[in-house]
């Protein structure tokens, strides 16, 4: 059995699972826009809300954080970069390099915002079927002329469907390389090539098989789309998120 990464859909019965995908799409956009100007108190309020939803969808927080270890490392890098480059009152000084109070504050805030965007994305992908996401993308793109909305929709849903498979294949390839002591190779370029070449080959082969399998089941663009099923709570969610956004804009 494959291990689920944090970005795959998990069936469930939470409010978010039953929320119309178009509404969830809108909420993700509003939350991301709000975070551009959010200060620490606003970020903590949003974090509390997101933790509430994480508990509602039964997502294991520890396991999820473990999957995000490289992203968290990236956030630490952002904090350090900001702390070292933004001028201000020095907090620590060593060999002429200083970590400033203002830099640390800015770095933590930016990292916090990135983290919240990531958690929002995880909650969204855990509660949204790729098929419904495809449908919502189609719905939003339909009024735009010259955009093949059905093709864009199917590309997004397939990418979401196959990203976990590619990650699993990358893991298998890495294990195969390590089992032959490939991890002892010091040259990062060689290590990269040894991992990516077999992975790309496998991915393209899988894509070929997928095309055949879809063709064998009469795949075409003009197909029955999933229905939108509003749960009735969409207005409440939209008003609350807009209220949050306005508060951040004006306070």
């Amino acid at each position: 059995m494959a291990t689920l990464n944090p970005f795959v859909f998990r069936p469930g019965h939470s409010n978010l699972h039953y929320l119309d995908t178009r509404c969830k799409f809108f909420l993700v956009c509003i939350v991301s826009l709000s975070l551009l100007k959010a200060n620490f108190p606003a970020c903590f309020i949003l974090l509390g809300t997101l933790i509430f939803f994480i508990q509602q969808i039964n997502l294991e927080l520890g396991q999820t954080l473990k999957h995000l270890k490289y992203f968290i490392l990236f956030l630490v890098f952002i904090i350090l970069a900001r702390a070292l480059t933004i001028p201000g009152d020095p907090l620590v000084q060593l060999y002429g390099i200083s970590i400033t109070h203002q830099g640390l504050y800015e770095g933590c805030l930016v990292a916090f915002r990135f983290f919240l965007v990531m958690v929002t994305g995880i909650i969204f992908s855990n509660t949204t079927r790729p098929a419904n996401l495809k449908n919502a993308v189609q719905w939003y793109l339909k009024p735009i002329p010259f955009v093949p909305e059905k093709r864009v929709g199917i590309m997004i849903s397939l990418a979401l469907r196959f990203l976990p498979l590619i990650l699993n294949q990358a893991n298998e390839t890495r294990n195969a390389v390590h089992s032959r002591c490939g991890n002892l190779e010091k040259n990062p370029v060689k290590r990269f090539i040894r991992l990516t070449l077999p992975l790309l080959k496998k991915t393209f082969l899988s894509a070929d098989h997928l095309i055949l399998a879809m063709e064998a089941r009469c795949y075409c663009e003009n197909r029955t789309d999933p229905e939108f099923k509003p749960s009735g709570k969409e207005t409440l969610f939209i008003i609350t998120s807009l209220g949050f956004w306005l508060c951040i804009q004006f306070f």
Partner: protein
Amino acid sequence: MAIPILEINHLTHQYPDGSDGIIDICFSVTKGDFIILVGKNGSGKTTLIRHLNGLLRPQSGEIKLHGKNILKDLILTRKTVGMVFQDADTQIVGDTVFDEVAFGPENLNLQRNLINTKVTQVLEQLNLIKLKDRNPSTLSGGEKRKLTIAGILVMDPEIIIFDEPFANLDHPGTQSLLSTIADLNQNGQTIVMATHDVETLMGSASRMLIMDKGRLVEDGSFTDLIKKLESHGIKEPCTCRIGRPWQP
């Protein structure tokens, strides 16, 4: 004499590099058949079965479905001749078991109510209804294979083609899958199966086709051809060798 559903006449296919895939293949499939297609690796089994529902086009020869060339209506062909591929993981596109089975009927643009009814019926038929909300990637190998069969069965095919369905399955998975396929055949479903695993299918399959170097070299009943397997590089079932010294 029974009227054939599918007639394959002098089918020949060459790969883009010029090498022969299959050469002058002729046979027919009638309703209720359980045909196994055996041959060494590279003998052309997969190439042949991919022609049967129009995924590959022949260089010469033709395939007729109910007397009409399959290439004239590919949608009807693919609806009538369903195909289950070897690797279930690359075949499954749905994010839940239910969505995966609904993929085919959605492509046929059926009404949503009809799709829901048909999917539920097929899931019940294959005992997958309890798993309907599960993510397919969390299923066992045997369950994934059953799911791929459900994805084909929901389109009401007259013939189901399997490409190495027992590959990478453990013994319980193989037994469960075999029992599902045998039940389908006993209920009138026509089966064509490319496989190496002749032993598993003893007692289930009625007819055997043996391929060698792209040619169909034998076509006959399972019992008539069982002793000819070794001469074409295919392992004879152990149960047929009683009294002979054991060979690995």
